[in-house]
């Protein structure tokens, strides 16, 4: 699990909560190409959407989701190649049947073997800005242990109650 130095904002969601974090705190196991920056919206491009670290409580698991939207002044082909090479080096494997690469957009999917981690990289080439926009989601599914398994053995005996019985006797 990644640690953040500080967070910008905390938000309650319908199914959990999320933290907006600083760009510098982006997860290291999904590296970004050099010169990557946050996407700046608005006329002056000064409206930033900071990366999000989210916990979403599902019925059978908790989804931990890291997401962010970035841009880099590289062609789409270069960015696709960069992610495919770099993530593979880090141990990620591609999901070919869910990967699509077209002339002006691409959707790359990776999984980390023997874990529940998956990464989805959505890329789009912006002709007018001459850069590639990236929206990335890294999802980790944390399964819920069963009710019995989740209680440590030491807590099953209810020691306080036992003490009370002994004192009474």
């Amino acid at each position, binding site marked *: 699990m990644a640690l953040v130095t500080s967070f910008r*904002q905390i938000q309650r969601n*319908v199914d959990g909560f999320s933290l907006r974090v600083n760009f510098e705190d982006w997860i290291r196991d999904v590296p970004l190409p050099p010169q990557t920056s946050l*996407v*700046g*919206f*608005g*006329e002056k*491009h000064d*409206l930033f*959407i*900071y990366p*999000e670290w989210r916990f979403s409580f599902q019925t059978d698991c908790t*989804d931990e*989701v890291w*997401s962010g*939207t970035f841009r880099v002044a590289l062609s789409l082909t270069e960015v696709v190649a960069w992610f495919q090479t770099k993530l593979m080096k880090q141990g990620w494997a591609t999901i070919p049947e*869910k990967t*699509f690469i*077209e002339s*002006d*957009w691409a*959707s790359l*999917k990776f999984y980390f073997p023997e874990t529940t981690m*998956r990464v*989805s990289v*959505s890329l*789009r080439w*912006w*002709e*007018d*800005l001459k850069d590639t*926009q990236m*929206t990335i*989601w890294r*999802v980790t*599914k944390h399964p819920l242990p069963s009710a019995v398994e989740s209680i440590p053995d030491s807590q099953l005996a209810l020691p306080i109650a036992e003490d009370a019985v002994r004192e009474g006797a």
Partner: protein
Amino acid sequence: MRIRSDYVSLSPIVVAAVLTAAIILFSVLYSRTPQINFVESSTTSTRYLADGTEGLTKQTALHLSKMQGGASIGGFPGFEPPDDDERYKRKVKGEGYNAQDVNNWVKEINNFLKQIVKKNPNRSLEKILQKQGLTPSQTDDFLDAIQRTQYVADGMKGHGVNPETVKMLESLMKTLGIPLWTY
């Protein structure tokens, strides 16, 4: 003889009564049937969609395109801002849109998605797009664009995008079987 004469004189009346009853019954049943008109997809004769769905998905793609630099989404034509409107061009092509624009565009997307849901109850958008003949790649692009739109709109809540508009989009995504993130 008497019986035969009655039978002959009554039979047209009986036939007419039965026909009238059948017509009334049919019209009552027809009026209670959901009025969904089906159109044939251009790709295959076995694929059907509620009438008007193709137009609605095309409109949805057009509005999604505004937040994707005017790019084509799911193989549909992209949004082209008017030539004489430089400010609008900058908003769309140069990603110069603000929270108010996002609010308006997402509201429009919500309206189209609502109509798609209404016309195609209990169907996922993925299935709808497949039935329209979109390739797996185009379908992925379309759904991806909705996810990115939700992501940006949610991120802009702090800058003035109405949380209710985002909530509505998320609710429609859930109804249409689109997760907030792909796993």
